[in-house]
């Protein structure tokens, strides 16, 4: 299990990133602050704060943090080692390139998991005390889905990093991904609706074609929210997760479990592409 040795080394390395800890500190404060706001400002919770509502409220900030932190902690994962030449230390040892990629993925995921779990615990404890309601099972489920989401994002960034020997290019790829697939994805969705409707916008969002629901799950942070709705169907804010509300879409695939499938695809595909490119490269 040579990837474990690589993962441990990579964890020891990445966990000492000051930038990541600075970002994590801000994230922790934000999470606790938002939990307090949720519990004390009736407007936010719709007049009736609950532990389950709090979980969905916190999931949003977790989604934002993981995407940014993964880029920060991961874009150099492979490209940086190639640029500096330290990859030759690791690869002069008996590790396959597959073990190196796998070890990198798990090492970076573990580093990102620390602030995610820490903030989740802090946020739910503080919020739970103030709300006077706890939802232990739902909290654990949120934690598990958040870890799957973290794994997916680490896979995306490490996978992109593995396609190149230049950190500049790796950073451009990771930021470009974030801009197109996260920030401006709504534009892509609208453009698709526009084009497929014969170059005219549908009269209202309810007139969007059903399959657009799937397109809306593409951004990992949307798949994350939708997955959460799948595992916590009773939550008030759950509905159908990201994108169109349930009921609007009647197709057989209009289930929030689509989000879990999308996350699984994000876990597997980018890292596979990165591995494929890295394995073929002259270092």
């Amino acid at each position, binding site marked *: 299990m040579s990837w474990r*040795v690589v993962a441990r*080394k990579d964890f*020891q*390395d990445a966990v000492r990133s000051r930038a990541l800890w600075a970002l994590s500190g801000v994230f922790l404060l934000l999470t606790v602050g938002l939990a307090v706001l949720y519990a004390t400002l009736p407007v936010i919770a719709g007049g009736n704060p609950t532990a389950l509502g709090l979980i969905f409220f916190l999931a949003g900030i977790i989604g934002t943090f993981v995407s940014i932190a993964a880029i920060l902690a991961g874009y150099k994962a492979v490209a940086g080692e190639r640029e500096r030449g330290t990859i030759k*230390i690791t*690869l002069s*040892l*008996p*590790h396959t390139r597959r073990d190196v990629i796998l070890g990198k993925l798990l090492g970076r995921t573990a580093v990102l998991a620390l602030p995610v779990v820490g903030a989740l615990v802090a946020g739910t404890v503080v919020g739970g005390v103030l709300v006077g309601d706890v939802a232990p099972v739902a909290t654990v489920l949120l934690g598990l889905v958040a870890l799957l989401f973290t794994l997916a994002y680490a896979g995306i960034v490490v996978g992109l990093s593995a396609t190149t020997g230049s950190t500049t290019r790796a950073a451009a790829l990771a930021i470009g991904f974030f801009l197109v697939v996260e920030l401006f994805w709504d534009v892509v969705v609208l453009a698709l609706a526009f084009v497929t409707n014969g170059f005219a916008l549908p009269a209202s969002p309810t007139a969007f074609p059903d399959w657009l629901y799937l397109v809306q799950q593409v951004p990992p942070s949307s798949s994350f929210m939708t997955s959460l709705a799948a595992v916590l169907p009773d939550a008030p804010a759950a509905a159908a997760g990201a994108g169109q509300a349930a009921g609007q879409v009647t197709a057989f695939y209009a289930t929030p479990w689509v989000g879990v499938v999308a996350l699984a695809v994000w876990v597997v595909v980018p890292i596979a592409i990165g591995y494929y490119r890295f394995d073929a490269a*002259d270092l």
Partner: protein
Amino acid sequence: MAAIELEDLTKRYGDVTALDGVDLTVRSGEVFGFLGPNGAGKSTTIDILLDFVRPTSGQAAVLGLDAQASSLEVRRRVGVLPEGYQVYDRLTGRQHVAFVLDSKDVDEEPIDAMARVGIADAADRRASDYSKGMRQRLLLSMALVGDPDLLVLDEPSTGLDPAGVREIRRVVRETADRGATVFFSSHILSQVEAVCDRVGILRDGELVAVDSIEGLRETGGGGETLRVTTDGLPDAALEAVRALEGVGAVRRDGDSLAVEADGTAKTAVLDAIEGAGATVLDFETESRSLEELFLAYTEGGR
């Protein structure tokens, strides 16, 4: 069994040929110096041995194993001191060594491996705080983990102080004494000369010589170097000297000239210089040093 066996090894990057049909056998148990100027293809060769780079054509075998198909087994039995002394800045020395011990499944305390190269007291400091000499010792201790059958040193002397160079020599000797093979790449002949049984000289991706140091001296002609100082050296003088029989490499240094010539050609060299209109102020002869031999090989009589 050969420690390293290269057969018609070729590597091209686009239009650039880094290695051009290299055949080489490094015997088991020998200390082999792999010489050549920067960019000659030494690093590419080592990169192929470790499967960092895949050859365009030809074969490379290490310890009897195919360098590509059996790379994992090769790397289990090889210790490598990589070029450039890069380390993981955020890891301590101990974490570096522990990583290698775990990777090679060797049961030893990191601190013991570090003590062997005299850096045990820096074990818990981050490697970014190490001096260049300490980084080199750290990487040496990592390369020696598990007593590898083949030790590959990629340009180990670059930028080292004399103590560092001595340390490299000590490690090479100890490794050879326990019967392992050392493959020592360098662009500096003097650092290879003292420790190597045989050397190979690479130039522009081609192996131009493989021999023992003594053998090289003999095939090099055992000639002498004639150093001539003039009051001003016209290009015509250079051409006249180069055209002479019995003259090897000719190197110009301002108004001085270093000429590789056999004994009978010396007078002719002086005559040729004066014949071209220069005045000889001084001249001396010295028997040809290995350094000049090396230069003659790598510069090809330029």
